[in-house]
C-alpha cells in the first residue's frame, strides 16, 4: 500500500474518536507495564497470573458486547423508527465481541496450559465461552444473508435476541453438567486468585482499557457500516438510471 493512501486519515475519524483511540493506546501501554512488570507474581499461579490481565478483560468486554448487541437489536425492533443505525451498532458490537471472545479462548487455553497442564479443560466458563463464540459467528452469518437493509436489520435483531437468551441457558446447563464431574475442577486452580492491591487495580484497569478499545472499534466500525449501506443506496440510483435508459421496444 502506498504512502498517500495510508497518510490520509480514514473518513470515519473525528476529533473525539481520535482522542478515544489515543486514550486506548496509552492505556494499553500502561496496562502492559503494570501487568508484565510492576505487579507481583501470584502465590498459587506464579507468573501465569499475568495472562489474566488480558484474558479477564477481553472476556468481560466480549459479554458486554453481546449484551450491547441485544440492547441495540431490541431498540431497533421496538423503536418507533426501526433505526438502521441501531442495527449497524448491533452488528459492529457483535463483530468486536466475536474477536474479543476469540482472543479470550486463545489466552484462556494458554493460561490453562500453564496452570492445568492442558490447553483445554471442560471448565464451565471456558465451555460456555466456546459455545457463544460459535453462536455469534452464526449471528454474523445471518447478517450476511442479503436482502434489503431493513430485512437484514429485522432478521438479525431477532437472532440476536435468541443468542443473548442462550447465554444464561448454556452457562447454567454447563454448570449443572460439570457439577457431576467435580473432581476435575476442585483440585486445580480455576482462575480465581487472591489479589493484592496493585494486582486488583491492574485487573480493573485492564477492564477499563479494553472497554475503551471496544468503544473505539465499535465507533469506527459503525461508521464504516454506515458507509457500506450508503454506497449500496447510491448504487440503487445508478441502477435506476440504467433501467430508465432501457429502450422501449417498438
Amino acid at each position: 500500500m502506498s504512502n498517500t493512501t495510508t497518510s490520509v486519515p480514514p473518513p470515519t475519524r473525528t476529533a473525539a474518536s481520535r482522542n478515544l483511540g489515543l486514550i486506548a493506546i496509552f492505556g494499553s501501554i500502561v496496562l502492559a507495564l503494570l501487568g508484565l512488570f510492576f505487579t507481583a507474581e501470584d502465590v498459587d499461579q506464579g507468573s501465569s497470573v499475568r495472562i489474566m490481565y488480558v484474558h479477564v478483560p477481553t472476556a468481560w468486554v466480549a459479554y458486554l458486547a453481546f449484551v450491547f448487541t441485544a440492547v441495540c437489536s431490541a431498540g431497533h425492533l421496538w423503536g418507533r423508527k426501526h433505526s438502521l443505525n441501531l442495527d449497524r451498532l448491533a452488528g459492529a458490537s457483535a463483530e468486536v465481541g466475536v474477536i474479543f471472545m476469540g482472543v479470550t479462548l486463545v489466552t484462556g487455553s494458554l493460561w490453562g496450559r500453564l496452570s492445568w497442564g492442558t490447553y483445554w479443560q471442560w471448565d464451565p466458563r471456558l465451555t460456555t465461552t466456546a459455545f457463544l463464540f460459535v453462536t455469534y459467528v452464526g449471528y454474523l452469518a445471518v447478517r450476511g444473508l442479503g436482502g434489503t437493509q431493513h430485512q437484514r436489520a429485522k432478521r438479525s435483531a431477532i437472532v440476536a435476541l435468541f443468542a443473548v437468551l442462550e447465554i444464561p441457558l448454556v452457562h447454567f446447563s454447563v454448570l449443572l453438567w460439570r457439577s457431576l464431574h467435580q473432581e476435575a475442577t476442585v483440585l486445580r486452580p480455576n482462575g480465581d486468585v487472591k489479589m493484592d492491591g496493585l494486582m486488583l487495580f491492574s485487573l480493573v484497569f485492564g477492564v477499563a482499557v479494553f472497554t475503551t478499545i471496544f468503544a473505539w472499534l465499535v465507533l469506527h466500525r459503525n461508521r464504516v457500516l454506515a458507509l457500506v449501506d450508503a454506497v449500496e443506496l447510491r448504487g440503487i440510483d445508478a441502477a435506476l438510471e440504467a433501467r430508465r435508459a432501457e429502450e422501449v421496444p417498438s
Partner: protein
Amino acid sequence: MKHADFIVISWVLSFAPIALYAWRNARRARRLDPFVEKSDKPWT
C-alpha cells in the same frame, strides 16, 4: 516453551487481532470514501 513465552504470546495474541481489525477497517473506510458524499457522513 518457557513460562515467559506463554505470557508474551498471550499478550501479543490479544492485541494483534484487534490491531489487524482496526487497520482493515480504516482501509475499508478509505476505499469507500470516493463513492459517498458528505451527507452520508453525519459525524463530520
